[in-house]
């Protein structure tokens, strides 16, 4: 027997896992039962989903090509046999700052 959800707060608390599909089927069913009788929570779910969508759209970032080139160039100088086919964009040397200790990993 699923414990019903009576209050919006419990619904909101479970929302993150619900929209990711990681909520147990029993709790998801209880949440959907609550949604079927609670228009404010339906609105809440809509705006919660829209928040993720808007932020993803506004904040998406790709790694700049120039940075890939400079990383390739940097590693080409410090890693034996590393193929350095990109142009030799200057990159600040970190050879002295990188941790070269022999910590067991």
């Amino acid at each position: 027997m699923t414990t019903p959800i009576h209050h919006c707060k419990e619904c909101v608390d479970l929302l993150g896992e619900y929209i990711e599909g990681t909520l147990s089927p029993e709790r998801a069913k209880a949440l959907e039962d609550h949604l079927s009788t609670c228009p404010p929570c339906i609105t809440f779910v809509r705006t919660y989903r829209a928040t993720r969508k808007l932020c993803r759209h506004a904040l998406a970032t790709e790694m700049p090509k120039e940075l890939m080139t400079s990383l390739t160039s940097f590693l080409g100088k410090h890693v034996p046999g590393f193929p350095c086919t990109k142009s030799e964009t200057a990159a600040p040397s970190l050879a002295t700052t990188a941790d070269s200790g022999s910590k067991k990993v």
Partner: protein
Amino acid sequence: MADLNQTQREPAPEEPRLDGQPGDRELVERAQQGDGAAFAMLVERHQRQLYRLALRMTGSEADAQEVLQEAFLNAYQKLPLFRGEAQFSSWLYRIAANSALMRLRRKRRAPDTLAEQPLELAGPRFSAEGYLEPASSSDWSQRADEKMMSGELGAAINRAVADLPDDYRTVFLLKDVDGLSNEEIANALDLTVPAVKSRLHRARLALREKLGEFFDGAK
């Protein structure tokens, strides 16, 4: 600070790749035998996600570049000691996250872990009985699509995200914008998965409040 030590355990299982390319484990073994081209393939494969992690943690493209250089060089130097008990990508995230944290600490005396910062986050308001207050249930989702390309909305989102505490912002960006799994984020930031889920949810609630204020003001 995340610990890079691995105890003696069975190697982590590795999913076969759909593109027919060698898996990370094979490339790591080749790189451990001195194959620089194999290490280059690992760099090519993981550099984008590492860049996003570094950028989200440091907030600076220049710092992200240096974190990436340091992390990959550090990984190369530690490669002979990597025994495959963890996924290579997880191991790499930890190295990059440690590098980013050290850089932050040097620059602004950042706390030892991202989880030590104070929390001040907005969220929905409930009645004493646990019901949503009307102010928390304005439906602006229908107007979201038409505002998607708005510069004002973009600026409002950037402000709202910048106002989040560092650890909440980092978790939110890595998950909802960059698409890392909860497990990857937990491993990189030295948090538990429940802690990742909690920060993520709180961050989303705070951002939802700010977006609600934006849309209410734009009526």
